[in-house]
């Protein structure tokens, strides 16, 4: 099923619409008006505004047209490149944010004792705000926090570090927190995928003498490919646009710009520096990046339907 075919036709829409058909269409249009107003005014129209303002030095009150040089200035701004590099480095956490949930889902699928309880536990952090997760993570990585006491417990008391305060380590701590935050959702997704797997396939392979790894590699993994693709896209988009809460409470973008990503740069540039034009420009760049990822997602959904 493709998106364009979602709205079906009623049988009697011929070349000459009857009174009933015309009435139906009129009611149809009326029912869509609130949605169109809401989404049009608050999502689609601001995109156009953002494009326009990206060519100005708008500060929220006065607007001066700058033109294309606003964009070339932005591309010469090292802070923006630092933010993009931070985003790129955060993408290194995506494989972990997929592999751990995949392992968790496959283990849950074995239905060992207590698997329902484990499932609930793994999903539970999905319900809590990333603000809360960020606050807990701040304690975990703090100088007198859990990580350092665990390290000294196992004999590494020489590695006593304040990860969130170190320019070369803060992003790693943020990435680890991001991985933790994605585990629930992705496990949920993979478990749904495994539930649709025909158990007789695995059974047949086992009777044929295939070991656990071979069954995973040749039956489970291919079956999950679409779920993996969806989880990949969702995780990448989250890495670009859902980290605001974590960054806000854990590092506020610092130290320096070490944990400032594009989405946080939009906020900082707009609301700390009142450079609304430049902030809108960064927002457009972020939009383009996520749109490219999103189009890949649509392509995948389309593939499934054909």
């Amino acid at each position, binding site marked *: 099923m493709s998106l364009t075919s979602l709205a079906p036709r009623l049988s009697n829409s011929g070349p000459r619409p009857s009174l009933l058909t015309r009435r139906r269409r009129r009611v149809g249009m009326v029912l869509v008006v609130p*949605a169109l107003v809401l*989404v049009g005014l608050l999502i*689609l129209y601001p995109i156009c505004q953002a494009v326009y303002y990206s060519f100005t030095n708008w500060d929220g009150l006065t607007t001066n047209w700058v033109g294309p040089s606003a964009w070339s200035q932005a591309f010469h701004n090292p802070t923006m490149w630092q933010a993009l590099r931070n985003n790129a480095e955060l993408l290194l956490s995506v494989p972990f944010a997929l592999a751990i949930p995949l*392992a968790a889902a496959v283990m849950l699928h074995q239905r060992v*004792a207590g698997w329902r309880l484990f499932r609930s536990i793994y999903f539970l952090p999905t319900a809590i705000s990333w603000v809360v997760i960020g606050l807990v993570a701040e304690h975990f990585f703090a100088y007198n926090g859990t990580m350092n006491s665990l390290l000294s417990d196992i004999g590494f008391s020489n590695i006593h570090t304040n990860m969130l305060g170190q320019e070369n380590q803060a992003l790693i701590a943020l990435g680890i927190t991001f991985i933790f935050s994605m585990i629930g959702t992705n496990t949920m997704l993979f478990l749904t995928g495994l539930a649709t797997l025909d158990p007789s396939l695995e059974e047949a392979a086992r009777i044929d003498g295939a070991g656990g790894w071979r069954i995973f590699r040749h039956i489970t993994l291919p079956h999950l490919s679409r779920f993996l693709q969806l989880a990949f896209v969702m995780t990448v988009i989250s890495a670009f646009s859902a980290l605001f809460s974590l960054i806000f409470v854990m590092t506020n973008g610092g130290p320096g710009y070490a944990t400032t990503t594009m989405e946080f740069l939009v906020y900082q540039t707009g*609301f700390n520096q009142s450079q609304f034009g430049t902030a809108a420009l960064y*927002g457009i760049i972020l939009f383009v990046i*996520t749109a490219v990822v*999103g189009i890949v997602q649509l392509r995948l959904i389309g593939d499934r339907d054909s």
Partner: protein
Amino acid sequence: MSTLTVSAPKTKRLGRAAIFAAMVALAIVMLYPFAIMVIISFKTNAQYLIGHGVSTQTWQEINANIPVWQELWNSTVVCTLSIFIILVVGIMAGFSFAKLQFRGGNVVFLAIVSAMMVPLQAILIPEFVNIAKTGLTNNYLGAVVVYAALGTPFSIFLFTTYFRRIPDELVEAGIVDGLGYFGVLWRLALPMALPAIATVTVLQFIQIWDDLLVGLLFLQNNNERTITVGLAALAAGHTTSIPLLMAGSLVSAAPAMLVYLVFQRFLVRGLTMGIDR
């Protein structure tokens, strides 16, 4: 029992024990935030700094330091109003796209659904200026309309797929019987969409309850901010005690966790929507 399980019971039992151990290990990691919130919230700030001691003082004084009840109420109001708009707008439009096809409906549907892919940060700046100009940031409605707009595309997508299952003949029969289109929507379509209503409600509740960015910018009055925003604002201040933050975190997390535990299956359905059909 197949011969295989009889011939190799020992390795199988070992394998299951290993899986169990790994699952316990992951469970400890996933429960860590909850454990740490409970443990630290039962300390005074001094006890937290020296690393031992238990006290209920933080909990006794939480009301004096965080306007917990006011913020919980604010979160409830914002969630309720936003979800109400998301449901009403989504049900109306979804029914229209699915059953009342009008000219150009497909294009409008595509435009609205593709709005799902716009990250808030991409439109944040003009959105904030627009809403601030209307004065809505000085009351709940500023955040409410933004949440409603952000939640509506998914809601429409879900309701459209749901209403497509209703046979055209049923709709036509309702019209012939004089119910009118609103009658058909209210009496025939809506009862069939109850699971979708539950899914949208649970998903949006958790999303809005947990959100920071919209509340932070679009609720400019401190006495109207949600519990999540209040918590983040408290954390941003420098003199805050960690036990107080952890107690506040628990209070903010409790309602969303309760909703999650009660309505887990609707949440799972919502998150896997679009692939699990």
